[in-house]
């Protein structure tokens, strides 16, 4: 909160620890449910069926920018403008972060579009070169981002789209292995988004789930459409598994434990 040009922070004492209410990791329901910490170096996000897990990524971006960390965003699903618009609603300025070089964006989609315009062979025969070039782009961006002391996050949204570009499963698994091995540098953490609709998609999703420190799964309700609950989030950390229901609003997401819907929606 800013007043007369000075930053004012509200603090609350909970038990023995002092927390700021302006801290989205505490005040934001999605981030409070996810509890992604610095030591969680591999995060996998899985969309089941028709569910959309993009809000998990945008909330993680909010946390990353709040912690003054760096971000390399690889867009294979949504354009940059989408993250920009969502950022305005969630309370972060992606444009400013881009100007400050805190965020680097790798957009294979725009490159594909430009190659269509220039009538190049945009869906190359050599599928390995697609993932290879993408990996080098990512690596270069991360090298630039890890100059300082801050942690750099790689977010890929989403890996399953590589299959749509005709890349074989084995190559996608290799690409994932390469990206995972970027965490050999202690300043790098990786976040992968995947969607599971076919058996081949599932191989990629499952493969990530085996190695993830935090695995987040977003699914639609098994019982079908509901006006009160949009879907289910499952967060798995080691052997601890917690489940939340969520409701998507225009300006944010509310999460609650199953069965507590009524207390949260009609207050």
């Amino acid at each position, binding site marked *: 909160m800013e007043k007369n040009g000075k930053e004012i922070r509200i603090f609350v004492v909970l038990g023995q620890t002092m927390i700021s209410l302006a801290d989205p990791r505490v005040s934001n329901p999605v981030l409070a449910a996810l509890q992604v910490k610095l030591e969680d170096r*591999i995060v996998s996000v899985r969309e089941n069926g028709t569910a959309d897990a993009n809000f998990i990524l945008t909330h993680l971006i909010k946390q990353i920018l709040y912690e003054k960390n760096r971000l390399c965003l690889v867009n294979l699903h949504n354009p940059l403008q989408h993250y920009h618009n969502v950022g305005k609603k969630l309370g972060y300025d992606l444009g400013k972060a881009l100007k400050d070089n805190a965020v680097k964006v790798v957009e294979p989609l725009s490159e594909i579009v430009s190659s269509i315009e220039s009538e190049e062979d945009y869906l190359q025969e050599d599928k*390995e070169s697609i993932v*290879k070039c993408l*990996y*080098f782009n990512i690596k270069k961006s991360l090298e630039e981002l890890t100059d300082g002391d801050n942690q750099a996050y790689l977010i890929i949204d989403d890996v399953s789209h590589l299959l749509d570009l005709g890349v074989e*499963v*084995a*190559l996608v*698994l*290799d690409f994932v*292995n*390469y990206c*995972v*091995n970027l*965490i*050999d540098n202690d300043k790098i953490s990786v976040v992968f988004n995947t969607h599971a609709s076919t*058996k*081949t998609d*599932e*191989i990629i999703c*499952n*493969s990530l*789930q*085996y*190695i993830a420190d935090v695995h987040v799964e977003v699914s639609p309700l098994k019982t079908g459409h509901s006006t009160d609950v949009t879907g289910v989030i499952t967060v798995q950390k080691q052997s601890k598994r917690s489940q939340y229901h969520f409701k998507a609003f225009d300006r944010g997401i509310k999460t609650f434990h199953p069965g507590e819907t009524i207390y949260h929606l009609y207050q």
Partner: protein
Amino acid sequence: MLKSYLTSRPYTKFVLIEDSLEERGQPIFDFLVGTHLDRPQSIVHLFTFHGSFARALKRFGTKTNFVIHDFTSNSCGWNGKKNEESFEDAALKLSANDVVVVDSLAHAIHQCGLSETYRVFNALKNQAVAQVIALLHKDLLPSTDKVNKTFEHLCTLSLVVEPKFRSEDKRVQYTYKKLSGRVIKQVEEYNFVNGDLFTKKIERLDPKKLLQESVVPQVNPETLSTFKIGLSDKEKEAREQLVLPYLPKNEEESKEEEGAEIFYQLDEVDDWDEEDPDDDLDI
């Protein structure tokens, strides 16, 4: 019995651990690798095909009898020079005291192809190595049955981990092929106490015992509440003697009541007709 098949000498040549996300086989895998690492005379060669190389190294790297072969961080040779040795070359060079450990057989199949991977494992099985241990994530294979069966056929001891059922301990279904040709199929429960594996045979369930268990024990209502719910013998007797007014009465009692008569008292202006109105009818 499973533990002796796993750890006693001479070692079972090829141990295949099959798991899925539902139930992970990593603890058994780590236990087996740890057992070999504790024996200085055996050299453990880990072929890592999955995840972070640095993490794999950190997990076991402190031991001196540990060699790691990296097939994950630069499998395609994008970062400079690719591994000089292929999986096959590296595996076939191993000697009698060496233990071959593959952390994800599914990834090896994706990377090298099914036929080549099978060939390497077949060669390893016939080669003079101490033991071959492989972890197979079943849900990472496109056609599960075919690959499963292929490697189950090749291995000496296959373990399929299963979730717990009717017990606190998890289950493992194993098939052990003895040198004599006898095949033992068994399901056992396992748990870890202070890092040590304990397995026990699951006892066959006795249907009579199960039936006895399934009978709901009689609940004494007196114990459920502070109120007096039950009846004493005297109260029970009194209850039996009570005749409720709406219930049909005994015949004898109804006969006694038949004695009642209707007295009809005529009014002064009552036109009582003494004649029978049906007198004229010839009935």
